[in-house]
């Protein structure tokens, strides 16, 4: 409770962090208790589902302090900027509320309807019908809104979709049933109308939940290039500003290990920068005073003072963003399978209902009876099965893919993934791991490995990290070092048992390598390689078996691409700029191919947006992950092939579901047309077909195996 008193009177602020490492009750307790003891922190609460930590704290507590505290607890954390923080799941909640109301109403009306079907007569039946109406009418007015809105916007633009027959059917049936109830008629279809809404809403909720879940997963992965920076004013005072508060002309201090939040020019200091998130290139680039630097790059070696030149919209990635905006337009023209089905289905339903009305009038039935039959035709032909056919199959498949390490952002991505017949891969970071790996750890004797590991632990240079990973994986324990010094662009040195030891680059530029020196001993060369992802060969083989031709489109030079992909049997196009990749995709598209783009870097962003469908690895840049339709986790490339196979299986089940729904219509429509559909038959048909469709979709739960 000390925190509460210490911040009395000070305004509070809420910051959201992504904490991807939290996965159990122990982590939750550790993080929440650890932060609660921090002065100025009022409360900390971890959401284990979205891996997001919400901290409310006094304004005097700076974000880097919180990150440092989390790091001491053993968790890497990234502050989420306003755009990604906080779940924008208003739509899901509204749908869930509508579903709850419809479910409540459906149950109560069914209770009354069952009594009517079991033989309630006369006054009791009329009373039950009236009661049903009193429950059904507010329910239709509330829960029907998502359908009415969508139908209205379609009609206003002169189009029709599945929601048009649903809306007309529900409204017509409710109105007629009300008339029946008031005039003491034998049949009221309130139960049918409300149950239809309930089942259809379940489908919508599933669709929406799937999108939320994947969005949370992707948000937790984002590296948040633009969290903020420490800014020093003219009088020397320094303060932490969020990225959106940075203005051109400000001077920011970038500590080693921090990411730049804005473009700028280096004023003082020299260091090396990791551009891998921007270009996919893993070799660091040295930078000194006067050099220009870009938002999203990681400062590796020593502090820099940078004068901000461009922020947010003006920064160097604006051009890439513009290309992506244009490239994404083609994809928004994609029409989802449910809507394509509705285009054929809606007119047929309307014609059928209208003709049943006309036929019964011609046969001499009264307008009331004819209208009732037309309404029964409408309600029986817009079956819940059709509304559930697509979302149930897609959410089950997406859940299975999520367990296999693929986060699919929405159902339309699964549909497009199933249509792919051509795949393009970026090289660095996509086919390869995008990080250097130590090739010959055995070049160092075991005792020396401990020294190299200790040195490497003091640097964030990618090669040092590779050394650290290699030796830590072998279980080497580091020795104690003194007087550790890091010289930007050169290497790191220290003293160990009276001897000078160092890890440093060589004089000549001989590929990815570094040299280990100890005292006056001969220096040892350590070589590194950007390795292919595990199971690349099998992934490409499987894609080939699925009838998908694969090739490489890389921004790298010809020889280095050739070396990397030797033996994979792939063709490659090299030296491609973002615009060239776009043109290539456009050409393939024009010749009738549906292109799957797999890439990671900022430079792949436009191509990822332009592809018929796109995948990015979890290690990709934020831009890459945002542009891609799905993100695959882990090092292996196999999930790419699994995703395509699972998507095809899903579409297979979706088509089966459509067939079931249509088969049901073939039986039910003639009955409805003949005026033989009583409320009981409508209720049985509806729930029966929905159960079959859901059951069929559940077969996909192991789709990603």
């Amino acid at each position: 409770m000390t925190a509460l008193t210490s911040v009395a009177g000070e305004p509070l602020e809420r910051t959201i962090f992504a904490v991807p490492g939290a996965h159990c009750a122990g982590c939750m307790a550790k993080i929440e208790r650890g932060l609660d003891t921090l002065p100025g922190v009022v409360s900390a609460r971890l959401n284990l589902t979205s891996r997001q930590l919400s901290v409310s704290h006094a304004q005097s507590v700076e974000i880097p302090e919180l990150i440092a505290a989390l790091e001491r607890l053993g968790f890497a954390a990234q502050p989420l900027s306003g755009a990604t923080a906080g779940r924008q799941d208003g739509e899901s909640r509204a749908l869930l509320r509508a579903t709850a109301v419809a479910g409540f109403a459906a149950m109560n009306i069914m209770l009354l309807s069952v009594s009517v079907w079991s033989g309630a007569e006369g006054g009791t039946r009329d009373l039950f019908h009236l009661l049903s109406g009193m429950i059904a009418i507010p329910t239709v007015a509330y829960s029907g809104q998502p359908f009415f809105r969508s139908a209205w916007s379609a009609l206003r633009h002169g189009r029709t979709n599945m929601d048009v027959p649903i809306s007309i059917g529900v409204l017509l049936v409710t109105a007629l049933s009300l008339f029946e109830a008031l005039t003491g008629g034998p049949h009221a279809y309130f139960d049918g109308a409300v149950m239809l809404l309930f089942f259809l809403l379940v489908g919508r909720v599933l669709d929406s939940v799937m999108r939320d879940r994947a969005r949370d997963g992707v948000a937790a992965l984002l590296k948040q290039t633009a969290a903020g920076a420490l800014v020093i004013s003219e009088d020397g005072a320094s303060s932490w500003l969020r990225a959106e508060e940075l203005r051109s002309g400000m001077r920011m201090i970038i500590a080693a290990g921090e990411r730049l939040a804005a473009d700028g020019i280096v004023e003082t200091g020299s260091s090396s920068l990791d551009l891998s998130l921007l270009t996919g290139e893993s070799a660091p680039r040295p930078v000194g005073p006067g050099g220009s630097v870009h938002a999203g790059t990681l400062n590796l070696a020593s502090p820099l003072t940078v004068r901000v030149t461009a922020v947010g919209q003006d920064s160097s990635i604006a051009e890439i963003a513009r290309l992506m905006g244009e490239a994404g337009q083609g994809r928004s023209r994609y029409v989802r399978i449910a809507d394509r089905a509705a285009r054929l289905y809606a007119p047929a339903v309307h014609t059928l209902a209208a003709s049943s009305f006309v036929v019964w009038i011609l046969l001499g039935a009264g307008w009331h009876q004819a209208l009732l039959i037309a309404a029964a035709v409408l309600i029986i032909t817009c079956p819940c099965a059709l509304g559930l056919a697509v979302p149930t199959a897609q959410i089950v498949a997406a859940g299975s893919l999520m367990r296999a390490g693929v986060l699919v952002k929405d159902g339309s991505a699964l549909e497009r993934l199933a249509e792919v017949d051509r795949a393009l891969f970026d090289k660095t970071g996509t086919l390869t791991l995008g990080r250097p790996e130590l090739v010959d750890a055995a070049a160092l004797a075991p005792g020396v490995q401990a020294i190299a590991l200790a040195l490497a632990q003091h640097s964030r240079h990618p090669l040092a990290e590779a050394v650290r990973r290699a030796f830590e994986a072998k279980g080497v324990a580091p020795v104690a070092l003194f007087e550790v010094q890091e010289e930007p662009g050169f290497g790191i040195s220290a003293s160990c048992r009276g001897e000078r030891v160092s890890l440093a680059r060589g004089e000549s530029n001989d590929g990815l390598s570094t040299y280990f020196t100890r005292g006056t001993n001969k220096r040892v060369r350590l070589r590194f390689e950007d390795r292919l992802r595990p199971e690349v060969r099998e992934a490409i083989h499987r894609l080939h078996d699925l009838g998908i031709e694969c090739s490489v489109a890389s921004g790298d030079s010809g020889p280095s691409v050739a070396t990397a992909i030797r033996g994979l049997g792939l063709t490659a196009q090299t030296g491609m700029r973002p615009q060239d990749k776009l043109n290539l995709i456009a050409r393939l598209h024009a010749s009738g191919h549906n292109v799957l783009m797999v890439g990671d870097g900022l430079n792949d962003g436009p191509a990822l947006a332009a592809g018929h469908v796109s995948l990015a690895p979890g290690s990709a840049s934020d831009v890459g992950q945002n542009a891609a339709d799905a993100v695959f986790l882990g090092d292996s490339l196999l999930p790419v092939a699994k995703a395509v196979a699972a998507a095809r299986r899903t579409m297979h089940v979706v088509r089966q579901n459509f067939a079931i729904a249509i088969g049901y219509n073939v039986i039910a429509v003639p009955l409805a047309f003949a005026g033989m559909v009583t409320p009981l038959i409508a209720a049985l048909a509806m729930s029966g077909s929905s159960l079959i469709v859901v059951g069929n979709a559940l077969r996909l739960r192991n789709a990603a195996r």
Partner: protein
Amino acid sequence: MSGLTYLIPIALLLGLAGLAAFFWAMRSGQFEDMDGAAARILIEDEDL
């Protein structure tokens, strides 16, 4: 049949109570973190 006059209102009220409870649970954020809720029960309270 006269039993219906109070049985039906009771049934409706019970249903409405369930609906209200669901809305309350949703509003108070009980569905925000399904995995966390399952894990939290394992956290031992040190204050006791």
